[in-house]
């Protein structure tokens, strides 16, 4: 026989101002099976909780309904109180008299009647609630970090330093990412490589980090704490254990005219190459697409010159499967390049370049050893124009968002230029200067006031070539929209930051959501900026949206803490509010007929197959099985199942039906 307790909270005056709480308690107290009913000013307070606990013990209650605020607010509080009094926490239900009743209605009898109805339905529900036990899931304490840019490096190091194993996967031959390409960094103008390379080396030498470069994530199965990841280690065509990284092969390779990705096409590299001198690992790979041997079938110069005989032309790709418990996605971003800006002649005029190309020109290790020279004729540009928001904040171009980093790096570029070409003239066309960040505004002021950078508020309409000069036509909106024409030697476009290539495919492989710009989506824009919608998968850096280095690094450390918190437990405890497939006596075993339509509808890939077998292993029947670790309890499968063979713990069809019937029936 059910003995239900009802506790009506006044929530100060939040509920009692419009609902007659005493009448609610009194009316519900007369219902069948309600053994105890009372109202109190603050149920969530210590005396309120004590009242509940005492009543559970004194009246030997088999279920309670706390009629107060939203369960999002205090369900954990009251379930904990119930548990402390010896009642299974899932035998405690909450009727939301605040958000669903008192806050949205005026004070009158109907409001009180509605409150009574809300409590009544839950009294009926809690009568048939089952005692549920939390689900325990083991945790594999190894993390996977995808992407070896600064965010990935930071995350990997932070996780590794907590004592957990990390696998860092990077698809290019070296870690370092875009940061390794940068010349100097705002707002301090310290050399990017100088602050980055020690971290890269630390990754390579850290005992807890396994580094796979030239590798990509091919597939992911499993769930939080228990993922299985498939990693394709692309063939480097050499034996890394033997290779000493002497670099002889890279100097002797006859193929020398391959556009260098690291130099953003401003330089060339051989077919067997190390992306940049400080690369980690500092061992070459053969680019099979451009290597003469793989194209024509002969050459093998590198094999001949290699002093340790490390070249392996027939080395296949290797696909490995690894068990991991958590994932940090740090795949970074890319920038818009040629053909997106026909009006600016980008890709047509050699001296119209993008921000990353300028970084290489300004970098001491770049193709010009740090001298700012025009790509067309190698002359020092006397007049340089920077165009901010090239593509960004331009809904007509399909990119409505602000790329965030351009204002700052454009100020830096102009500054670097002025530091190197003292007599030169630098102008910046901008829409707004967005310099929110520590010491950022001061940095921009320095560019304007100390380095005399000419800031023009307005957009550039077109750029064309005349007599070897670039004519930049724009407008100065601060002068009432006056047209401006600058005869420039070189133009740098601060092109929009966009999702990295392959981001969409990776998101699909990892089953995480992404936005319309293919950036990875966070679980909550404010309160869960590091989490994805898939439990156990976190985000770091510019793969979420364009970010500068400090933001990427802080988010990377945030993601690392999330991983460390997950790994601090040996078992994960999950709420048992998950779906289940019913069981019946043989020969049916379950009413599930195994049509598996639920499998395609499940957004969490939580539905597996289960075979019933005879003792000699013959399959009698195959039915659906819910993976409790993956199931989020959304109930989509329950709604879809034609034979009503799936149900949801805590919200069973029967419980829902009972609630509806309670509302329809007289009391």
């Amino acid at each position, binding site marked *: 026989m059910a003995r239900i307790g009802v506790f009506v909270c006044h929530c100060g005056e939040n509920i009692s101002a419009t609902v007659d709480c005493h009448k609610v308690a009194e009316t519900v107290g007369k219902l069948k099976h309600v053994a105890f009913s009372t109202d109190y000013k603050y149920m969530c307070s210590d005396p309120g909780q004590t009242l509940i606990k005492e009543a559970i013990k004194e009246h030997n209650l088999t279920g309670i309904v706390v009629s107060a605020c939203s369960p999002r607010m205090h369900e954990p509080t009251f379930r904990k109180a119930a548990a402390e009094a010896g009642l299974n926490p899932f035998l405690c239900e909450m009727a939301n008299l605040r958000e669903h009743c008192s806050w949205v209605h005026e004070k009158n009898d109907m409001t009180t009647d509605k409150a009574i109805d809300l409590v009544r339905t839950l009294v009926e529900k809690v009568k048939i609630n089952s005692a549920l036990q939390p689900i325990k899931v083991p945790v594999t304490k190894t993390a996977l970090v995808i992407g070896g840019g600064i965010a990935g490096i930071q995350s990997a190091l932070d996780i590794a330093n907590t004592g957990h194993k990390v696998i860092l996967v990077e698809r290019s031959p070296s870690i370092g990412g875009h940061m390794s390409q940068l010349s100097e960094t705002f707002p301090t103008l310290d050399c990017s490589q100088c602050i980055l390379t020690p971290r890269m080396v630390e990754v390579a030498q850290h005992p807890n980090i396994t580094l796979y470069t030239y590798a990509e994530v091919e597939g992911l199965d499993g769930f939080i704490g228990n993922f299985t990841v498939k990693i394709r280690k692309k063939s480097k065509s050499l034996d890394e254990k033997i290779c000493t990284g002497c670099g002889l092969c890279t100097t002797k390779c006859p193929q020398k005219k391959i556009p260098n990705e690291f130099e953003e096409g401003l330089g060339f590299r051989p077919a067997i190459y190390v992306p940049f001198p400080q690369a980690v690992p500092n061992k070459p790979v053969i680019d099979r697409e451009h290597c003469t041997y793989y194209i024509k079938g002969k050459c093998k110069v590198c094999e001949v010159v290699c002093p340790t005989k490390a070249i392996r032309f027939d080395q296949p790709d290797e696909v490995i499967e690894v068990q991991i418990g958590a994932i940090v996605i740090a795949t970074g971003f890319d920038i818009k390049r040629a053909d997106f800006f026909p009006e600016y002649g980008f890709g047509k005029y050699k001296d119209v370049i993008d921000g990353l190309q300028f970084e290489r020109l300004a970098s001491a290790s770049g193709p010009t050893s740090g001298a700012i020279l025009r790509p067309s004729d190698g002359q020092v540009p006397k007049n340089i124009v920077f165009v901010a928001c090239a593509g960004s904040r331009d809904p007509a171009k399909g990119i409505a968002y602000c790329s965030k980093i351009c204002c700052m790096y454009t100020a830096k570029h102009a500054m670097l230029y002025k530091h190197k070409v003292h007599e030169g003239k630098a102008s910046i066309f901008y829409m707004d200067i967005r310099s929110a960040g520590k010491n950022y505004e001061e940095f921009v002021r320095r560019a304007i006031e100390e380095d005399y950078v000419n800031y023009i508020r307005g957009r550039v309409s077109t750029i064309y070539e005349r007599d070897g000069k670039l004519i930049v036509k724009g407008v100065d909106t601060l002068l009432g929209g006056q047209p401006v024409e600058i005869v420039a030697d070189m133009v740098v476009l601060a092109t929009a930051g966009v999702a990295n290539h392959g981001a969409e495919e990776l998101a699909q492989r990892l089953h995480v959501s992404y936005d319309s710009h293919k950036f990875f989506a966070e679980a909550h824009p404010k309160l869960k900026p590091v989490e994805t919608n898939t439990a156990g998968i976190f985000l770091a850096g510019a793969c979420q949206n364009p970010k500068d280095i400090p933001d990427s690094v802080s988010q990377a450390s945030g993601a690392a803490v999330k991983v460390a918190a997950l790994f601090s437990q040996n078992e994960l405890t999950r709420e048992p509010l998950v779906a289940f497939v019913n069981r019946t006596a043989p020969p*049916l075993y379950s*009413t599930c*007929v*195994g*049509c*598996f*339509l*639920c499998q*395609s*509808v499940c957004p969490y890939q939580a539905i597996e197959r289960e075979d019933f077998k005879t003792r000699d292993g013959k399959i009698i029947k*195959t039915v659906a099985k819910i993976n409790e670790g993956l199931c989020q309890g959304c109930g989509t499968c329950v709604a*879809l199942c*034609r*034979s*009503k*063979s799936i149900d949801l713990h805590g919200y069973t*069809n*029967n419980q829902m*039906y*009972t609630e509806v019937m309670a509302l329809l029936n007289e009391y």
Partner: protein
Amino acid sequence: MINLVSRADELLESKAVQVVIGYEAGSTGKARPAFITDPSKTGSLIFDDRCVQNLAVYLTKKEVRYFGKAAIVATLPIMRSIMMLISEQQVFAENIVVLGVSAEGKYIDIAGIEVMQQYIATCDLGNPAKDQETLAMLNKMSTQQKFDFWQKELSKCIKCYACRQACPMCYCTRCAVECNQPQWIPVQSNLHGNTDWHILRAMHLAGRCISCGECGRACPVNIPCHLLTMHMADQVHNYFNVYAGTTDKMSSVMSTFEPNDKESFIQ
């Protein structure tokens, strides 16, 4: 039907199959389903205008499965049923042999699922002409007229579930109507519960009905309940450009999402 008989004979003789599911002449002049396990009895197989039942319904029956591998005489709706049953993993392609019969009643050699798929692709998959006419007439009615029409029809329902039993796609071992915790559909026959049942049945067959019309034919009180599922088949084709039972790897329109799905019905 010499080809059909000789092929059935050959299959049973060589023990390639253990049972042939086909039609034979019944005692009242109607055709009835035949389950032939003895090669000497294949002569009783017939195929003519009287052979209308959808034999695919037997493929999922425990008593028929008990025989072992089955050969089945299949017209277009039966072939489409088989495709759906394979898609929904109720029948395994390797456990059946299809003895195809064309619309003209000619034997067609169906060597495998791919051949069957190619054959289905050449056929008109819309609803039968006669039913299309009735549906067009119903669709012209006002909502109230349609409601009145169905209330009148459904008031006749005696909840015998013959419609369900005749349908090859209603293969659940426990139907939703038999679920009594909670009792979704009233057990007794009343207009309200009858309406519930027929709406539920139509929804469960949305995107799965292969327009054989067996449910309506099986109804002892002549409710044209096949029009409900056929209308759903029409709708699914309009919105998702899908006809049920065209391949053995059908994904259910009700449980899949394609980015180019029409959403005009969400209002």
